[in-house]
């Protein structure tokens, strides 16, 4: 009698523990499934990012390449050939003049911040804050400012010069940041060695620090070329939209991106807009490859 009671109790207990067991197993299964689902989602998100890029590039290259015709590269623009050649030349001119303004200022700023300034001084804080502010300002606000200051206040009119100055302010923070990072990556032993040999700070900066920071600075400059090439909103009301090669710095001209905006907003030249998109994309891919290549060079040098 006693034995039977116990066994039945045991049975009950066993049953209960089985229930608990199933419950626990379900719990662990659920948490496993939850994390499997997360893992799945992570892969899906990465795949989406990658596929969207591939799709955009493939779609534009595939549909746009047939629209590239020799007449697009005629020397002068008219409404029949819709040539993008003047825009191409203007783009190169804009890139060169913007870099000419921004690079000396950007590199000097970085040199001051890294090599000269006392860390945490008020000037450094102010310069940091303003550079950060500049990097967050959207291009249309730059365009607005360029229009108010360079075009109207300084009476430059819609001109290459006004566009280049506007863009040079826009790319300044990018150049400052990349130069600063590559200056900081130069080991202090280089500087100490140079000082030890009797060189002054100036000589150390130009002969020792800058040469070894060069690849990083170049990578930053290449990236800013990419930003200039792709810029539209900051240029429409500063450099204007004239489809000619500007004859002097105070003449108006449109870059490839502005050219493309003009074409697609008129709505008549879809095939030419396609062709321009292809060329813009190719330029951007080339620039990114170049920048990655120079950046890899730094990694090799420092290793």
């Amino acid at each position, binding site marked *: 009698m006693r034995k039977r009671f116990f066994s039945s109790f045991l049975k009950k207990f066993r049953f209960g523990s089985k229930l608990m067991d199933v419950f626990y197993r379900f719990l662990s299964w659920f948490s*496993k499934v939850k994390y499997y689902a997360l893992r799945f989602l*992570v892969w899906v998100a990465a795949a989406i990012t990658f596929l969207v890029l591939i799709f955009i590039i493939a779609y534009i290259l595939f549909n746009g390449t047939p629209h590239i015709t020799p007449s697009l590269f005629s020397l002068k623009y008219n409404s029949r050939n819709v040539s993008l050649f003047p825009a191409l030349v203007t783009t190169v001119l804009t890139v060169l003049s913007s870099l000419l303004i921004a690079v000396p*200022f950007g590199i000097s700023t970085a040199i001051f911040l890294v*090599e000269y300034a006392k860390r945490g001084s008020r000037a450094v804080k102010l310069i940091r804050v303003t550079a950060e502010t500049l990097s967050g300002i959207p291009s249309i606000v730059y365009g607005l400012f360029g229009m108010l200051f360079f075009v109207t206040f300084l009476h430059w009119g819609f001109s290459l010069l006004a566009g280049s100055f506007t863009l040079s*302010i826009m790319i300044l923070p990018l150049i400052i940041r990349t130069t600063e990072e590559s200056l900081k990556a130069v080991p202090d032993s280089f500087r100490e060695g140079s000082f030890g040999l009797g060189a002054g700070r100036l000589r150390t900066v130009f002969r020792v620090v800058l040469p070894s920071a060069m690849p990083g600075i170049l990578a930053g400059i290449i990236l800013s070329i990419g930003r200039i090439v792709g810029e539209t909103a900051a240029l429409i009301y500063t450099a204007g939209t004239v489809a000619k090669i500007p004859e002097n710095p105070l003449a108006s001209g449109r870059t490839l991106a502005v050219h493309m905006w003009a074409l697609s907003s008129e709505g008549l030249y879809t095939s030419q807009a396609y062709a321009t998109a292809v060329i813009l994309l190719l330029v951007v891919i080339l620039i990114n490859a170049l920048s990655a290549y120079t950046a890899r060079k730094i990694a090799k040098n420092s290793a």
Partner: protein
Amino acid sequence: MQNFKEIAMKYVFFFAALFSVAAVSLICIFLFANGIPAMGKIGFFNFLLGREWSPNDVPAYFGIFPMILGSIYITAGAVIVGVPIGILTAVFMAEMCPKKLYKILKPAVDLLAGIPSIVYGFFAVVVIVPFVRAFFGEKLGMGGNGSSILTASLLLGIMILPTIISITESSVRAVPREIYDGAVALGASRERAVFGCVIPAAKSGIMAGVILGIGRAIGETMAVIMVAGNQARMPAGIFKGIRTLTANIVLEMGYASGLHREALIATGVVLFVFILIINLLFSILKKGDNK
């Protein structure tokens, strides 16, 4: 002589460094000096909260509330589309990605950041707009011609991906390895360690990335103009068009004059103030991450 050169160059570098300070102050001065008077003439609240924008009517109405809402709606849409994909992709790249795949994925994200916004806009015009028109507009009977809040949100969601990915990735990587190792040592699976321990530790960095993405989305101009429809009216649903602050400036600045032009500059001032607030939030969060 040598000493003189040293000191002279030091000051040259210093004054060059003041260039960015000068640029920011000039931008502030010129924007505010040209924009604030218009706000005064129109009336501050009439300008910010006015529901009608009809600069060519007599009397003209300059209310930018529809455009403020437009910018906010489209940015919110972009956040809904872009943030989950961006954060998960960043987690993938920082924690789960095989090295070989990383070598392809990293340049791909950089390239995504490098594609000009005009090309994004053009792509959306030839692909996303027709798709939204055919699928949501006609098949599901939602109406609209494809240029809508939804289209702009999808496009901007893609465009802010690289910003969110790169900042999230670097802040996830900045989390000390011990946190992950400790979680795994306690028996957590890889996913559990990442999502339960590493991501909460990188929270403020991730938030900073999201905020920077919001800044990009609100300031984006050319791509939005091409796909958002640009009707200057109160939002009428996500399948209908809308105009953003940025679009308002570019569309009308070409022919505006007098008070109309000043009102457009004042629109720029409002946008600028939005961006300044976003930047401030960003730097506060970034500081929190450094602690």
